């Protein structure tokens, strides 16, 4: 059960125009840098991208936006990207904004075979428009549906041939949830290890959710807000 492919180019084989992709990461933290670069190179267009953020102008999903490869974004927060705002306000880009917790839970639900669930988030707001409302414990909730994708692309710290993954720090974020929700899920990792090297008790994403895995190269891991404190 060896799911290893050579590189990002091999991993994204089969991604076609107008497909729906999920991409892990929060801001630029934990994003699949190698696959994004390969998608730019591949030139696939008309994509619907489900990702918490849209990167920045010149990194992350911003690179796909620059090349106009994205038709629609499904995100919770896109505030760090001028090109994004321009395309959205001009109507070039469709945008579906979703509360962050609902986005995470909808991805998990998609992977877990839960087609829909009730959440209080968004009741009484634009987000609830057209959605079923039901009271539970005296409080209004809205019905949210599962999200799935033709391909989910996640970034992990370490992974093995079975696709078992371990993330590092807050680079975990949406990655484990999106990993569950792809018809095909690609994992790029900083370090590909031999089966048995990862302690079964501490694996974050079981290999069953992963179809392809490769070791990425030259991670830039750009920091969006470099905040420090003085040494006192």
């Amino acid at each position, binding site marked *: 059960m060896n799911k290893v492919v050579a590189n990002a180019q091999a991993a994204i084989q089969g991604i076609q125009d107008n497909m729906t992709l999920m991409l892990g990461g929060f801001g630029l933290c934990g994003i699949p840098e190698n696959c994004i670069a390969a998608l730019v190179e591949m030139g696939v267009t008309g994509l619907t991208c489900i990702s918490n953020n849209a990167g920045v102008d010149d990194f992350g999903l911003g690179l796909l936006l620059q090349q106009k490869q994205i038709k629609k974004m499904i995100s919770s927060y896109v505030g760090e990207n001028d090109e994004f705002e321009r395309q959205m306000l001009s109507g070039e880009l469709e945008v579906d904004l979703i509360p962050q917790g609902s986005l995470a839970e909808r991805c*998990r639900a998609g992977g877990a075979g839960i087609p829909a669930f009730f959440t209080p988030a968004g009741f*009484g*707001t634009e987000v609830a428009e057209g959605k079923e409302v039901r009271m539970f414990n005296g409080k209004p909730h809205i019905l949210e549906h599962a999200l799935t994708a033709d391909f989910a692309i996640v970034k992990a710290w370490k992974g093995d041939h079975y696709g078992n993954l371990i993330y590092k720090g807050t680079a975990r974020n949406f990655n484990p949830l999106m990993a569950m929700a792809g018809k095909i899920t690609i994992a790029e990792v900083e370090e590909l290890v031999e089966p048995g090297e990862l302690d079964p008790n501490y694996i974050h994403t079981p290999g069953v959710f992963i179809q392809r895995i490769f070791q990425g190269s030259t991670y830039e891991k750009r920091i969006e807000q470099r*905040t420090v404190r003085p040494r006192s």
Partner: protein
Amino acid sequence: MLDRNGIAKRIAQELQDGWYVNLGIGIPTLIANYIPTGISVEFQSENGILGMGPFPFEGEEDADLINAGKQTITARSGACIFDSATSFAMIRGQHINLTVLGAMEVSEKGDIANWKIPGKMVKGMGGAMDLVASAENIIVAMTHTNRKGASKLLSKCTLPLTGVACVKKIVTNMAVLDVTEDGFKLIERAPGVSVEDIKAATAGNLIVEGEIPEMVI
């Protein structure tokens, strides 16, 4: 009038020992600098960490350790890391004791708007809608008026809502107010700010009962 740090200091007085607290971007983030001595609180950041520590020393930034504002942070002893679904399970499941966030408008019913200005600015709601829909205890930290001098405390929000009837308390540069069934109830004045000043800066229904003490910061 308080500055941003003053608002943060005043809100910090609301913290109680043993609380888990989620701080939004902006003024709320500053609260972590003013935790009263003798109490222990833990900060949650919705991108997946509990036990957030201070910013790292220069040169020790870790790209894999950020908060929801995308700032580099550190993890305290006893911290833990989790995915986004678990993070919002904590929030939606009401395991977080206090949420503090900024706002563009708050209504006298406790409605809040802070994510969108139609046609102008659409950054998205991030985790704010989940936070305000679920938290039992929500404090808004904001300036009392906007840059044009218009009140942000309204009878009804004019901007797209983030949540309905959820804000319990507001701390501004001018006042501390509780959101009650009858409207904004004035609790404290900022140093040097009169009740008349606050009345003039509050568009929604303001309830002033008895002597209004000045904040002790």
